[in-house]
Every structure is written in C-alpha cells, then in structure tokens.
C-alpha cells in the first residue's frame, strides 16, 4: 500500500479524475459562484478543487464520461487555478516571526512575498501548459509578466521567472538565518511592491495578462482561484481572501477550503448565500453518507478486482451492530430465532439492570420478544447496540479485557467509521483488501470475503492510528499546553464518559452520546473543539444537512465514529449531555467498580 495514496494534495489532476466519484457537492462547486468548502481533513476538499482544473476535466471528458449513462455534472464555465499548500510550508512561514525575532510588520511583508511567489509560480506553470505550442506567445507573456510586476534581472522565459521566484525565497531564508537585517530589507526592497500588496493582487493581475494575451479566451473569460488549506494560512491572507468574497472583480471566482466552522469576525464578513455558497462536506448522521460510501467502495473493488468484483456487501458482509434496519424488517430481525433475540436473552441472564429495564417496558427478560411493532421499532432498535456492546465487553461484574471483538465488522460499520470521508473510507477498504489478498477467501464459504475477525483487527488498527493522530495534533504552535489540556485528553474524557453510559453499572435505555457546549465555555476548550472539528475527531451535529456552525457555543457535537472501537461506542448520535457534565465527571478522581476492572488497551 503506497503511503499518501489517499492524499489528493500531491495527486495529479489526471489521477484525481480517474478515481473521482461525482457527488451533488461537486455539481454545486461547478457553478459560477464563490464557494466555501467546509469540512475536516480527508473529506475531499482538495479532490473537489483539483477536479475543477482543466487537466482533470479533460481526463473526465475523454476517459470517464463516455462510460457514464448520463452526465454526472455540468462542466464549469470558468478556468480553475489551484494553489497548493500544506502544513509543512504553512507552519514554516507562520514561524518566521517567532524564530527570527523580527517585527510583525516585517514578518507580514516577508510572508506576503512568499505567498505571492508561490501563487505566481503556479500561474506561470499554468501559462506554460496553455501556450506550449507557441514559443513567441510564451516569450510575450513572460515579458508582460516581468514588466507588469517589475521582476528584476529575469530573462523573458517561464523557467527563468520561476527560478527568480525561488531565488527570492532562498535569499530571504539565508538572510533570516543569518539575522542580517540590512540584507532582509535589501531583498524586500528589491521585490516588486505588488508582491506585498493585497493577497489577490498577484493572481488577478497575472490572470488578466493571460486573458489579454491568449487569443482563444472568449470575452468575459472567468477564472476561479482555488485556495486550499486556507484555515491554517496566515491571518492576513485569510482575512483578505475571505473579505474578497464580497468584493472582487467579476471575472474572478473564489473557491476556498475551510474547516467545519464558518469563519466569522471579519470587518466585512461575507454573507452566506448572498456572497458565497457554503458546501458542507461532512455527515452528521450515519445514514446520510451511505450512498456515497456504497458508490466509492463499489468503484474501489471494481478497480482492484479485474473481473467479477464482489459488491461491498459481499466483500465485507453486514453488521448486526451498525445496521439500522427498516421498520418493516423488525419482525424478522427480533423474532425468537434471530441472533439479536439470543443476544438480548444472554445479557438478561447476567445483567439485572437490563432485566429491570425490559420489565419496565413489559418485556419478559427470559423471553425478550414482542409482537408489538411499536416495541420492536422503538425499544428494541434503540437498545440493540448497547446490548451487543455489553455482551461483548461486560461480564456482569467487571469489564472484560479484550483487544478487539468481531462486533466491529461489516459494511455498515466501515461506512460509519469512515464518516463518508473519502480518505478514511479508502484507507479502510485498502486495509481490508490487503488482508484479503493474504488469504483470498471467497463468498462460497458463506462468510464475507474478509472474515469478521480480520475486519475487526483492521478497524481496531485504524482506530488506534487515529488516536495516535489526535495525540500528535498540536494545539497551538505558540502555546505548549500541559498534557492534561491536550486535545487527546479532552477527547479521552468525552470518550470515557460515553463509554460509561454503555458499559457502566446501569443499563441505559437511552444513553447519551453527544454533547452540547455551553455559552460560558473557556477559550482553551473552544480552541480544542475547533481543532477537534478540523482534524475530524469531533463531528458537528446540525439540525439539517445544510446546517453549518458559526460558533462553538450552543452547538452539539459527538466523537467521530472512527473512535467507536476504542471507547466501545455505538455508531449513533444518541442523546445530548452538556460538556460541563462530562468534564466534571472526568475531574472527579473516583474509583468505581469499573475503574478497577478497566481493561488495558493495546
């Protein structure tokens, strides 16, 4: 399995197009409006932006579209320019002030120059692509760019422009490293002043040159400037780009990515629906992502198996634990011959609190069956995952020490844990496929291609990797918090609280599984929640699929289902509790029966 294979950031547009699964989100993105793509890491923001590029669309048009039964989206009426960024570059640029002890104004000028160099470098690559057939036109455009910006000592050739841009950055780095103030000033003064003007000066100015010079552009040709990872970029860049959603030249569209919380607090904050379209790229509710996950998994398997690709359901089987059955099915699912009936009965034989809960609803714990549809559709469906988890992890007096159980397996669980996040889903499917390759079992045995116990190992491993990621997700580069104030400890406190709801001494018919943030939440916790949202450890639960949070206070969140194997949680939103209730419980140093029996997690 190649590392980085699921990361679209460095995947070429051609490769993106070859594996692209169109969604309604992409259709919206192709509209000629400013757009803000919101979502956690891995949710597909970069893929969607790259699909807007000419190269990607050409591959789609020639290689993929002919095989489609109907057009999957409208082709955009603009030309997209994708400006890459990543954590490494962004943080190195952000650290300039702290590392080199130079003033804020000077730092900002240097950052502006670097961003301008990066943007212009990319636009010159685009120009190269558009004019490869005409040496004279290339020279003309190169000369126009040099003249317009006043780039010194550069031969009118694309390669030389890019070389000069890289040299500016290298020279700045050298001057910063030697803390040579006069040399820094010299380099800044030698740079075109336009490089430290408004954030959009360079892309707009240069694109206008291309529009004027390349004759087969129609009048009114539009550009889409696609800024990726804007949420981690310098604050001046965020501000100027976001404010431009309200006021930028008509020929330019902005397609931006952002974390799951809408940006606020700018002097002229753009108004959603008037100034831009917000596209939400996460799913609060498990069912919402099913179709997308099904299509993506199906395509994945078709690409892997050259012939006779199994469906995802055949490959992975179904999950008794994660599957939400249709009301019409409940008669079969909960009848006396069913596995669920046996599970109910098994738990009732050891858990007196469960017996009591059933009795309260007039269900005989020794024969946990009901012919009333209402009981099956409400009570039984509600308690099913808790019963399964308690049977798996709870022995009546103490928690069982188990690394993982085969409860965590099946198509529905894989989809739920992925949260409809393409990168996660591909990672999980690849983990399953790699394991299958080792044994190459088939459905003839009646089992799924990948046995449940293998799936459970893969999913447990994926969950542990995600925990390691949370532990590495640094809160704030300027602030070294104590270990107990980390995002990891915050997520752990929440996870342990909800785990107690499921595996605690009392069977809960309606356990809590989501939390509400109160108005008086402190600044540190607010930052942790936003960080958790950004990396996908926390998920916002909105009132609808279009609901996007603008503030943490008053909002409802849950842990990602990716952590379900770690904290033994059902893949449901469940009832809400306040954050302060969770954290008060976490602060209390109480030894309970269940603390003593706590299993060691590997």
């Amino acid at each position: 399995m190649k590392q980085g294979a699921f990361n679209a950031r460095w995947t070429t547009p051609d490769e993106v197009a070859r594996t692209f699964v169109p969604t309604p989100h992409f259709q919206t993105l192709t509209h000629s409006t400013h757009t803000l793509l919101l979502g956690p890491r891995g949710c597909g923001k970069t893929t969607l932006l790259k699909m807007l590029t000419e190269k990607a669309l050409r591959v789609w048009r020639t290689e993929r579209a002919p095989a489609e039964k109907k057009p999957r989206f409208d082709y955009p009426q603009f030309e997209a320019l994708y400006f890459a960024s990543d954590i490494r570059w962004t943080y190195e640029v952000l650290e300039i002030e702290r590392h080199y002890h130079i003033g804020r104004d000077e730092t900002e000028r240097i950052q502006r120059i670097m961003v301008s160099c990066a943007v212009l470098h990319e636009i010159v690559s685009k120009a190269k692509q558009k004019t490869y057939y005409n040496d004279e036109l290339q020279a003309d455009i190169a000369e126009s760019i040099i003249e317009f910006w006043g780039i010194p000592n550069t031969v009118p050739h694309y390669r030389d422009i890019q070389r000069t841009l890289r040299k500016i950055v290298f020279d700045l780095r050298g001057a910063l490293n030697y803390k040579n103030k006069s040399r820094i000033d010299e380099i800044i003064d030698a740079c075109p002043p336009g490089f430290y003007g408004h954030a959009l000066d360079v892309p707009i100015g240069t694109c206008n040159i291309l529009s004027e010079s390349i004759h087969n552009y129609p009048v009114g040709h539009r550009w889409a400037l696609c800024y990726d990872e804007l949420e981690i970029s310098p604050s001046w860049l965020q501000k100027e780009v976001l404010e431009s959603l309200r006021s930028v030249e008509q020929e330019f569209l902005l397609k931006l990515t952002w974390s799951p919380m809408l940006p606020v607090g700018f002097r002229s904050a753009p108004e959603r629906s008037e100034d831009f379209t917000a596209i939400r790229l996460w799913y609060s509710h498990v069912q919402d992502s099913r179709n997308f996950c099904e299509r993506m998994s199906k395509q994945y398997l078709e690409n892997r198996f050259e012939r006779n690709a199994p469906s995802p359901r055949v490959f992975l089987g179904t999950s008794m634990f994660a599957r939400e059955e249709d009301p019409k099915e409940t008669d079969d699912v909960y009848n006396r011959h069913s596995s669920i009936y046996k599970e109910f009965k098994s738990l009732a034989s050891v858990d007196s609190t469960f017996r009591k809960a059933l009795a309260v609803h007039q269900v005989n714990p020794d024969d946990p069956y009901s012919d009333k549809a209402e009981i099956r559709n409400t009570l039984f469906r509600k308690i099913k995952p808790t019963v399964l988890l308690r049977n798996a992890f709870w022995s009546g007096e103490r928690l069982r020490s188990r690394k993982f159980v085969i409860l965590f397996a099946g198509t529905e669980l894989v989809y739920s844990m992925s949260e409809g996040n393409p990168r996660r889903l591909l990672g999980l499917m690849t983990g399953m496929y790699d394991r299958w390759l080792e044994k190459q079992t088939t459905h003839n045995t009646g089992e799924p291609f990948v046995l449940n116990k293998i799936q459970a190992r893969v999913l447990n491993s994926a969950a542990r990797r995600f925990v390691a990621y949370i532990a590495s997700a640094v809160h704030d580069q300027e602030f070294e918090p104590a270990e107990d104030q980390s995002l990891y400890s915050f997520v752990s406190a929440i996870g342990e609280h909800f785990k107690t709801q499921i595996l605690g001494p009392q069977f809960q018919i309606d356990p809590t599984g989501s939390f509400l943030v109160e108005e008086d939440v402190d600044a540190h916790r607010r930052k942790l929640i936003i960080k958790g949202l950004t990396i996908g450890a926390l998920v916002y639960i909105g009132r609808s699929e279009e609901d996007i949070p603008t503030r943490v206070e008053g909002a409802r969140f849950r842990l990602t289902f990716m952590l379900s194997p770690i904290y033994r949680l059902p893949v449901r939103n469940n009832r809400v509790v306040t954050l302060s209730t969770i954290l008060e419980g976490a602060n209390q140093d109480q030894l309970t029966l269940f603390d003593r029996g706590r299993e060691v997690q590997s």
Partner: protein
Amino acid sequence: MRIRGIRQPTTRAMSGDEFDLFVVASGFEPRATTACRRLARLSCSWTLGVVLAFQEEADAATRKANDEYFASMSFEVVDVSASEMETVYLHMKKLLRSFSYKEEIRVCVDITSMSRLWYGAIVKALSDIELDACIVATFTYIPAAYSKRPRGLTVNEVLTPVRGYSSLALPDMPSALVLGLGRDDDCGLGIREYIDPDSTLLFLAKPGTDKRYDSDVLKSNKDLLESADSDAVFHYPLCETVTAYRYLEAVCLGMRRGWRVVAVSIGPKIFGLYCFLISANNPDISVWRVSRGHSNAEATLAQRPGRSTVILETAWGKIH
C-alpha cells in the same frame, strides 16, 4: 561554514587528543558525565570546558552529582532552559571566536544529555560563523544501557520547525518525511498523520547496541511499519557514524530532486545530529522537532550509560 569531511575515529585513536573547547550538558541523567570521564581516561585534554546546565532539572540527585563532577573538572557553567536555542547559539559563536587566532579550532561536543535544540543550535553556530580558521568538531554520544520500553501513548505537545532549519521552500513539489524512529508508542505514526506528507521514509537503528532496543522499536511502531512500503524502511548502524550519516545524506539528497524533504528524529539523538548536519549543508532540507508529554516519554527516563561511545568527527571550512 560547510562540512568538508567526516570521519569516525575510534576511542583509542582519540587517546591524548587536545581540544580547544569541550561542550557538555548537565542534567538528571547519569550518562551526562560519561563521555567526559571516558575522554579523561584516554588522557584527552581541553583548554576550555563548558557545561550547559538545564535550568529545569536543578534538584534531581543525579544532577547534583553531575554538577559536582563538572565543577571538579573546572567546567564553566552556563544555565540554559531546555527549549532555549538563542543563548546556546550565541554563546557557541562567542566561544569559537575566542579561538579565531588559531588556524584550526578543535571542538568536542557531547550530545548525550543535551536537548535536541541545544545541539541544533551548536550545529547552526558552526554553520553560520565566519572565520578564516577551519573547525574540527567531534561529536560524542553515549547510547543508554537497555531499559524497559516506556508504554502507553505519548501526546505531542509541540511539533514545529526548528529555528534556523526551515527551508521555506515553495509548495511546488510534494513533501517527504524522513523519520528517525524511537520507542515512544505510535509517536511516529502521529507525526506522519499530522504532517501528511506524500512520502515517508523510516529510519531505524539496526544494529543498535542491544537487540532488545531493536525489537522495542519494531513493537512501538508496528502500525507505521506495516503501512510503509518495504523500500521506504531503512536500517542504519547506530555505532557506525560515517556509514549512517552518508546513508541518510544520500537518501535526503536523492529525495530532494522530487520532494521537499523534512526530517524529524524521535529516536537516538545521534540521528537527530545527522539531520541537523545534513540540513546545515543543504538548507533546502527542513528539520522539525517534537516535544512530547512528560508522563511516559522515552526522553524522561534517567538512563544509565551503555558501553559504547559513538563518535563523529566533522571538518568545517569556509564557503567559497
């Protein structure tokens, strides 16, 4: 200045060596004085000894013993915080300049108990100083005797570029993470997930000084190693410094043709030293650092010295 050459002298070959400057660190580790004691037994001498003393660990019992030893050896004490680079950098430059009348300045630096930022600062000072003299800097490292693997997840509190080691290269190429692995459970995995590079190359010390260490590293990084391509996992010999350095250098220089390389070391300090040295000679290679929670990280263990002395001698000359 740039590195013009490297070699690995044996400890025996160092017998009777005379240094102008010997820089060590004093902390809570019993290993802090080991290099000095071993060099003294070999009749090595130095004109000026400087001990960088951790401000944070003043009260530990072993720290007091270490301080007393260095005092008895007439080392000049410089109190520094573990995260402080600037003081070490400036002080090192000042010390080197004080010997600028010489044609060749011989420096010994024991990195065993230093914080990564300190020896990063020392390498930076060697790189940035402008002198007519050439500098021969010998780095020593005393690997720890085997101790049990720290268990449990460690939280990364800081993951950031090291000051002076940011390449600031434009994001026009994908990034490659070169990661020196250690024994903190899943620390490397978390770093890879966070930096999110296009390519990850893993370096493990093998052979190390104790097979149990080798086995621990494999266990602590099981998921990371399983998800890596086999040709992206490299073994370097812990005690063969020139071989290890050249190996890492070759990989980094090869990768930088198509990737922006960032190096992170969470294993033996000697690997971290290689990263700094390679970056000093090739500023387009970034070095980042990790600072972990103190509850159970390897860095918090007071480790006894092992039997080996790992040595790398570097010769620095002017850039022409």
